[in-house]
């Protein structure tokens, strides 16, 4: 026994205290209902059990008119801007999915995983998909409903991050031009790594790289910027999935970001003539509403008006005195569009 380090408490008592403090003795919650759980297992058996499905090739495809990028197994989603996809006849081994600006696309991969691509999105599926893992590369926004397969983990790679599912529904927004990526989890859990250097073969982050990582669960919203700084907060995430159904949601969003999103969503070229408008903030939700209606609402709320010629839109400050009497004071912010009946 070392006299210089007096042992006031024996090992086992200290261990007991530490287990209490650190959670090992925390009560285990109630397991999920066994029958409900069995139903989930059954669905997994159906998907994974008959191996034929994973080997089967989709024998038809679609070509995107706008982008000219060939697609496999794509079902066009009716919605904003309408479908821009038309079928073509020859099957070919295609590994690139794309949606044009102003449209979305739903995809079912051969492993059963369902995706909805947001506007102006490219999804690349490397040749190795389904071998060691199921890695896809995303430029744009997509929501994923992943059929989990522990032996072939599903992962999404963006320029800034690597996201791995643990049986879940989540969206990733990673447009190249945007200042940050965003990952939102609706169900289950995902593992996120903010990798800044990404060797092509890196399915998991290399311990030697500067790559913050951890797990996100239901309701978590993570943003990753170019310095790999990762911020996580928890919130009601429903509004982050509204685009999948053709809706739009802005929560105290900068008008600059709103304009960028409207451009993508409707496939418009929107310019803002008065840069003072860009720093205004907008809150509101739209269900599947036509572009002009959305533009009208959004520009009105920031005290602007818009002129549209075909796909070009210019937004200017509203100069009518009745609307904006004092030129130096900005119009009211944080207006809830959805609750304003005076549209």
């Amino acid at each position: 026994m070392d006299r210089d380090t007096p042992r006031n408490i024996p090992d086992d008592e200290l261990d007991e205290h530490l287990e209490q403090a650190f959670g090992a003795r925390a009560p285990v919650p109630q397991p999920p209902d066994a029958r409900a759980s069995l139903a989930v297992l059954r669905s997994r058996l159906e998907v994974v059990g008959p191996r034929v499905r994973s080997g089967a090739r989709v024998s038809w495809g679609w070509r995107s008119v706008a982008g000219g990028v060939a697609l496999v197994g794509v079902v066009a989603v009716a919605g904003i801007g309408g479908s821009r996809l038309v079928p073509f006849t020859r099957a070919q081994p295609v590994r690139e999915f794309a949606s044009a600006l102003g449209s979305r696309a739903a995809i079912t991969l051969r492993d059963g995983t369902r995706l909805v691509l947001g506007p102006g999105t490219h999804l690349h599926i490397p040749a190795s998909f389904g071998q060691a893992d199921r890695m896809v590369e995303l430029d744009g926004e997509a929501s994923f409903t992943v059929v989990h397969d522990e032996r072939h983990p599903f992962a999404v790679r963006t320029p800034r991050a690597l996201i791995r599912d643990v049986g879940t529904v989540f969206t990733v927004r990673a447009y190249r031009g945007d200042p940050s990526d965003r990952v939102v989890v609706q169900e289950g859990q995902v593992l996120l790594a903010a990798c800044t250097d990404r060797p092509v073969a890196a399915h998991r982050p290399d311990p030697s790289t500067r790559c913050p990582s951890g797990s996100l669960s239901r309701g978590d919203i993570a943003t990753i910027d170019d310095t790999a700084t990762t911020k996580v907060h928890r919130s009601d995430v429903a509004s982050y999935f509204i685009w999948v159904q053709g809706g739009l949601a802005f929560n105290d969003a900068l008008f600059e970001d709103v304009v960028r999103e409207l451009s993508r969503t409707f496939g418009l070229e929107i310019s803002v003539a008065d840069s003072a408008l860009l720093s205004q903030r907008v809150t509101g939700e739209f269900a599947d509403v036509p572009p002009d209606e959305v533009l009208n609402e959004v520009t009105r709320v920031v005290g602007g008006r818009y002129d549209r010629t075909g796909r070009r839109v210019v937004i200017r400050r509203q100069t009518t005195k009745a609307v904006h009497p004092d030129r130096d004071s900005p119009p009211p912010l944080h207006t809830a569009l959805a609750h304003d009946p005076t549209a």
Partner: protein
Amino acid sequence: MTLPLRGWSVAAESEADLVGRVRSGDARAFEALYLRYHHSLWRVAYRYVRSTAVAEELVHDVFLAVWRGREVWAIREGVEPYLTSAVKHAALRSLRREAAWVHARDAAGNAGESLAVSGAAPDVTERMAGEEVDRVLAQAVATMPPMRQRVATLRWGRGLTYEEIAIALGISVSAAMQHVSRARAELRVVYDRLTGG
């Protein structure tokens, strides 16, 4: 087969019988096994991974493996010890996969970046709120080297044995014991100071 007499003794239905039926592809026997052991297996898995979703996944994975390999399914002891051990191993494999991510986080964390993603020690940092002693102990863990932190989390956050820690982190048992004993020594100093020792 379904004599009324057996109705009351469903729980007592011979395990060997059930296993034999599963082996011959009887989905109902398979599901009966699932319903019988789901809760206890889920609890086993949960103790390791501390996540309801992941625990459920692990139990599913074990049963999927059983079903896919049913024709050659062979067990020596009872069904429950077999399944429990399978779930434990699946949980340890899961922890091991996670370890790679956590190392990466630590590497970045040491580089002084601002990180909000919870990783290695959610148990430690979240569960200790409230008591001052616990809070300070958690801080002490947070300043340990990455591997010691990880080991401390598995030992006192999840109650793993040395052998399990070794498997989960891909290190030797003696290395696991060393990490635990160093972490314990550090925490003892903190604990003694706080409790006026």
